[in-house]
């Protein structure tokens, strides 16, 4: 056991602010040198829960809730004056019964600023791309519609290639904008009590043209017809259309994609199974990374952006849903989406609270 004075001296050596907090009263028992310096700079004093709350940039109740939450360790971001910190709260011992806990501060002001600028740039560039895309797609659409007279077959083919790729560019821009909206929290989620089977039906209808183009059949198997969830139906359709179109793209012609709904381990589980080539083990880790297309030897042929699954993953995370998959080379791939079950008032508060962003 290290003597208390030695421990305090050790903490003072840290460049980052560290607080020791009493688990019961939630008062600050000790501050290291860096914390004291920061505190003096912000000109407030005191060691009560209210002071801790001001450290954390939240109300006293919120601070209490966060500090007494069941999780033994967690991060959150606090705004302290003009500086932003990631704060990690950890009990002094792993047993969970300790009298004191640590709050480790890690300054992220600069990282936040860089991220904000990057996001702003992405957003501006994506929006700016849409105006020229409007003119390009418009001009080619009009040509193909015959507004400049009949075109020779070969010219027509070439315009079609150009148009198809303009469409792809627009898809990429839309996907980037979606990711951007998710990142800055402006993607709206309009949650309501939804029959999951209805969402599946809408998604399957939405994919009909695509299915026919690839000559793949889609079968639906509903084993939980009355399953309800508190989700944004449009966003969930977007997720399922994405998974279905992936499954279709990677299926052989004449193949079958199966979408099913069942109850699984306390969730409403939607599975999307294809008869494709499967994903090699060493590529499975890359699956949710942006701009990665597994097994896509010809990007243009599949028409994907490599952003779909990462959007799917982000949307599902915002809706408290989980995504997983099983895949075997030669045995196809199955994606599982696990959506919290909604069974009336009991869950509504919790689900609303975490999905309203």
């Amino acid at each position, binding site marked *: 056991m290290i003597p208390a004075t030695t421990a305090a001296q050790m903490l003072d050596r840290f460049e980052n602010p560290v607080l020791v907090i009493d688990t019961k009263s939630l008062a600050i028992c000790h501050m290291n040198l860096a914390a004291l310096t920061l505190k003096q700079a912000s000109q407030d004093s005191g060691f009560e829960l209210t002071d801790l709350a001001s450290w954390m940039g939240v109300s006293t109740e919120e601070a209490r809730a966060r500090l007494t939450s069941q999780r033994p360790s967690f991060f959150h971001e606090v705004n302290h004056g003009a500086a932003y910190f990631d704060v990690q709260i950890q009990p002094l011992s792993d047993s969970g019964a300790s009298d004191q806990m640590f709050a480790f501060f890690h300054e992220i002001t600069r990282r936040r600023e860089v991220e904000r600028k990057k996001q702003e740039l992405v957003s501006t560039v994506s*929006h700016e791309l*849409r*105006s*020229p*895309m*409007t*003119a*390009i*797609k*418009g*001009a080619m*659409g*009009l040509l193909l*519609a015959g*507004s400049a007279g009949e075109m020779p077959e070969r010219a027509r083919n070439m315009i079609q290639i150009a148009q198809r790729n303009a469409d792809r560019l*627009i898809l990429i821009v839309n996907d980037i904008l979606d990711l951007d909206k998710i990142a800055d929290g*402006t993607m*709206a989620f309009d949650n309501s009590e939804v029959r999951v089977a209805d969402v599946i039906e809408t998604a399957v209808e939405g994919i009909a043209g695509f299915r026919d183009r690839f000559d793949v059949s889609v079968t639906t198997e509903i084993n939980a017809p009355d399953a309800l969830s508190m989700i944004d139906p449009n966003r969930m359709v977007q997720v399922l259309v994405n998974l279905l179109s992936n499954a279709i793209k990677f299926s052989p012609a004449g193949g079958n994609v199966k979408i099913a709904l069942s109850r699984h381990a306390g969730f409403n589980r939607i599975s999307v199974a294809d008869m494709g080539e499967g994903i090699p083990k060493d590529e499975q880790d890359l699956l949710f990374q942006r701009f990665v297309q597994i097994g896509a030897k010809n990007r243009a042929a599949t028409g994907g952006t490599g952003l779909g699954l990462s959007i799917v993953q982000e949307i599902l995370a915002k809706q408290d849903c989980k995504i997983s998959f099983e895949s075997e080379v030669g045995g196809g791939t199955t994606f599982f989406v696990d959506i919290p079950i909604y069974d009336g008032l009991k869950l509504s508060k919790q689900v609303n609270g975490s999905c309203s962003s």
Partner: protein
Amino acid sequence: MNIFHVEDDRDIREITKMALEMAGEFQVSQYDCGDAALAAASDSTPDLFLLDVMMPGMTGPETLLKLREFDHLANVPAIYMTARVQPDEIEAFKKTEALGVIEKPFDPVTLGQQIMDMMAT
């Protein structure tokens, strides 16, 4: 049907005009900024305002509010065309009581139909 189209991008103006004239039932008068539309609107009454949103000078919603100050234009329906539908924009759209928003890039072949559908609601 007479349409007042306000759009700062010359190419998009041309595409829009061709698309609507191909559809047959539209006559399109075009202006490259809100001020030009205001100057022309004082002595004519179109059936519809078709407005870009982000323009140098007056924005689409600002232009529409000014246009509606003319008594003879107070009830002319309006549709926005925009590449960026942001939450604060939607507020502005609601405040100016537009029929709806056509998202860019639009499909030139169905643009006329899209407008007719919005006007029918």
